[in-house]
């Protein structure tokens, strides 16, 4: 039964992949959606069963690798953690598949597109449902490959193909960490099964340095997949793919695999304080820096990309401080609202005939009402406006960052500030797109998207609005269903972490909540002022009034101040840190090491002269080296 969940998308992949052009455009979309839908139904059924039984469901399909005492079986397991993931993947995935039918209409490679999308779903499900590291790695590699294929889907464009390559290379760096960690785990624990490895008594016997090494290597894998500093560079470029792909892979599912990995191995991670601190700091820094970049980006998808990196940073901060449930909670709500935002952006791009630059949008509210309202829900949710899904999850993270021993005031402060920035840039995006002047050219005629695209939007919007209620904080007297549900999977890990919930804290959870509401609304208002009110005011003011008035009126002043004190240094700093760092260091390492390799390769090439005698001389040199070796021994 469990095996059916990944089986259906695999089936869909085979049908669409092998059928190729023989399957009509319409049919391939339907097949792809139906198989994911079936998986979703099975997942729901199993969810009910799980609630009844309360113990993880398992199914061993076959023994994969058996060498000596070491065996790895290919088995799927559904516990609360993987159930959440499976529901998100199949549920949000289904909506995105349906959306794609409308979005990709008329594309000549649509069968290929859907087959990749189904393969991706299969791989992602394998990733989250496998009961051992090796099968997880299969999914891990598989989703990377699909992501690569889908980013480069419109391969006629060399820039897009290059983006795919970048994503691929960066992911391989992460995979290196994962593989090595896996070998280390195998050599230390003698097994790769989660059940055998993730036992506190087992871990306690391993030297702490080894645990730290393993977890840091796993974290390296996670940073690669989840686009955290310093391996974040591929995600903005990955936006070259079709927008639904960005929604599914680069927002809702694949990029969260790193968070899932850490949550899954929570016990292991929690055993190493160093790793935990590193994760928390990297997470918050990523959240912060990515948000600053998003402040001034004008490409609608790029804003969302940086916002994704930033939100992933929040999730990492959460798992880094030991709040695994909070991290997964945010992962889930993020899947709702980021999936929604991307799809809505896709709808806008679709309506604008492929235009992605927000400077050429504006005033789309009347033209695309459904998109407008659904996107508003998404923007409000991600900004953390009260009672929406993002509010609960982000708030929980901030609270945990504040109260955990791995967190602290500074991290919390940065987090809160980032939350305010999030509200600002998201509403900026919203206002620039839907309000203000119509800045698009004559040829473009914006139109609302067809039903097949708007219905998924509406459903995701509903989820974004109400999705947070399954995790109402306990300080509200609520009954945090989500926490309790995940407890089974994460309690052992949290056992390691001594939360200082009660003593020595200045602020209570409710006060923090008010702070974050203030931050969110502050950001919203600021954005409103700049991008809805300002455009007509500055012109008048500067014409008729003196500089003094400008200062008093504050419009320009604030704007300038904002520019001077806030945006520019931050942006410069971030540019220095993210973009320049990208180019010089990470790209340097990725491309540079590639270049070094190529240069070395060209050097080696010269040895290969084609003259047999030189080869003989090299062989002879080898003989001499062996004689030397023997002589030295």
């Amino acid at each position, binding site marked *: 039964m469990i095996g059916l969940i990944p089986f259906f998308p695999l089936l869909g992949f085979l049908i669409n992949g092998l059928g190729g052009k023989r399957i009509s455009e319409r049919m391939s979309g339907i097949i792809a959606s139906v198989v994911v839908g079936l998986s979703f139904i099975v997942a729901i059924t199993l969810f009910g069963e799980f609630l009844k039984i309360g113990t993880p469901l398992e199914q061993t399909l076959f023994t994969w690798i058996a060498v000596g005492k070491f065996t790895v079986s290919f088995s799927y397991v559904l516990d609360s953690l993987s159930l959440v993931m499976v529901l998100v993947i199949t549920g949000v995935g289904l909506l995105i598949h349906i959306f794609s039918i409308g979005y990709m209409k008329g594309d000549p490679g649509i069968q290929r597109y859907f087959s990749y999308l189904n393969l991706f779903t299969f791989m992602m499900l394998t990733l989250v449902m496998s009961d051992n590291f090796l099968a997880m790695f299969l999914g891990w590699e598989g989703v990377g490959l699909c992501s690569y294929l889908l980013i480069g889907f419109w391969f006629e464009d060399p820039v897009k193909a290059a983006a795919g390559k970048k994503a691929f290379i960066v992911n391989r760096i992460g995979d290196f960490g994962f593989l090595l960690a896996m070998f280390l785990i195998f050599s230390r624990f003698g097994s790769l099964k989660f059940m055998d490895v993730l036992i506190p008594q087992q871990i306690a016997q391993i030297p702490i340095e080894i645990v730290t090494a393993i977890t840091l290597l796993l974290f390296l894998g996670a940073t690669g997949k989840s686009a955290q500093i310093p391996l974040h560079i591929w995600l903005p470029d990955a936006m070259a793919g079709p927008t639904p792909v960005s929604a599914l892979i680069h927002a809702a599912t694949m990029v969260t695999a790193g968070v899932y990995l850490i949550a899954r191995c929570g016990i292991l991670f929690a055993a190493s304080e160093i790793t935990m601190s590193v994760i928390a700091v990297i997470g918050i820094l990523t959240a912060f820096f990515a948000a600053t970049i998003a402040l001034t980006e004008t490409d609608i998808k790029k804003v969302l990309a940086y916002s994704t990196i930033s939100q992933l940073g929040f999730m990492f901060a959460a798992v880094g401080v030991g709040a695994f449930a909070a991290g997964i909670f945010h992962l889930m709500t993020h899947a709702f609202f980021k999936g929604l935002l991307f799809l809505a952006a896709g709808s806008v791009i679709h309506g604008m005939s492929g235009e992605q630059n927000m400077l050429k949008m504006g005033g789309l509210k009347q033209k695309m009402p459904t998109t407008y309202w659904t996107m508003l829900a998404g923007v409000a949710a991600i900004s953390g406006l009260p009672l929406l899904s993002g509010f609960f999850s982000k708030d929980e993270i901030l609270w945990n960052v504040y109260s955990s021993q791995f967190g602290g005031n500074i991290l919390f402060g940065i987090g809160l500030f980032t939350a305010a920035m999030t509200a600002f840039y998201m509403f900026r995006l919203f206002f620039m797109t839907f309000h203000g002047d119509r800045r698009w050219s004559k040829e473009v005629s914006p139109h609302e998207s067809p039903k097949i695209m708007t219905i998924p939007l509406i459903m995701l919007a509903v989820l974004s609005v109400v999705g947070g209620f399954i995790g109402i904080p306990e300080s509200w007297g609520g009954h945090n269903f989500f926490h309790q549900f995940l407890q089974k999977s994460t309690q052992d890990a949290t056992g390691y972490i001594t939360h200082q919930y009660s003593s020595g804290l200045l602020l209570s959870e409710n006060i923090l909540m008010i702070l974050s509401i203030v931050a969110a609304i502050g950001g919203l208002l600021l954005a409103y002022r700049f991008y809805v009110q300002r455009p007509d005011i500055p012109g008048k003011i500067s014409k008729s009034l003196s500089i003094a008035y400008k200062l008093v009126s504050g419009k320009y002043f604030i704007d300038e101040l904002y520019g001077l004190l806030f945006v520019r240094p931050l942006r410069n700093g971030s540019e220095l840190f993210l973009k320049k760092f990208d180019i010089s260091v990470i790209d340097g390492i990725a491309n540079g090491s590639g270049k070094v390799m190529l240069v070395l390769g060209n050097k*080696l*090439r*010269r040895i*290969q*002269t*084609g*003259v*047999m*005698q030189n080869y*003989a*001389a090299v062989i*002879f040199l080898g003989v001499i080296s062996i004689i030397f070796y023997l002589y030295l021994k």
Partner: protein
Amino acid sequence: MVVPLEHVIILSGLLFSIGVMGVLFRRNVIIIFMSIELMLNAVNLALVGFSRYHNNVDGQVFVFLVMTLAAAEVSVGLAIIVALFRNRQTVNINEMNLMKN
């Protein structure tokens, strides 16, 4: 045995080195090939020495087999050289570098 074993081995080593020198120095494919024969003969000499020293016949049978190989290799080698010469009219090893990086 007429001389100490080590003298035979050193002689064989010297002969082998001269063979290697020929392979590394000469440009004419045929002479390179002759030098390889020299190397094989050096090996045979050592084998005979060892065989005599151990007083067992294995070494001499080995020499017999090496000679067979040498004959076979020479015939195939020369055939390849002939085929090459037909197409390229050269036996200079330096000119045989169509394939390189």
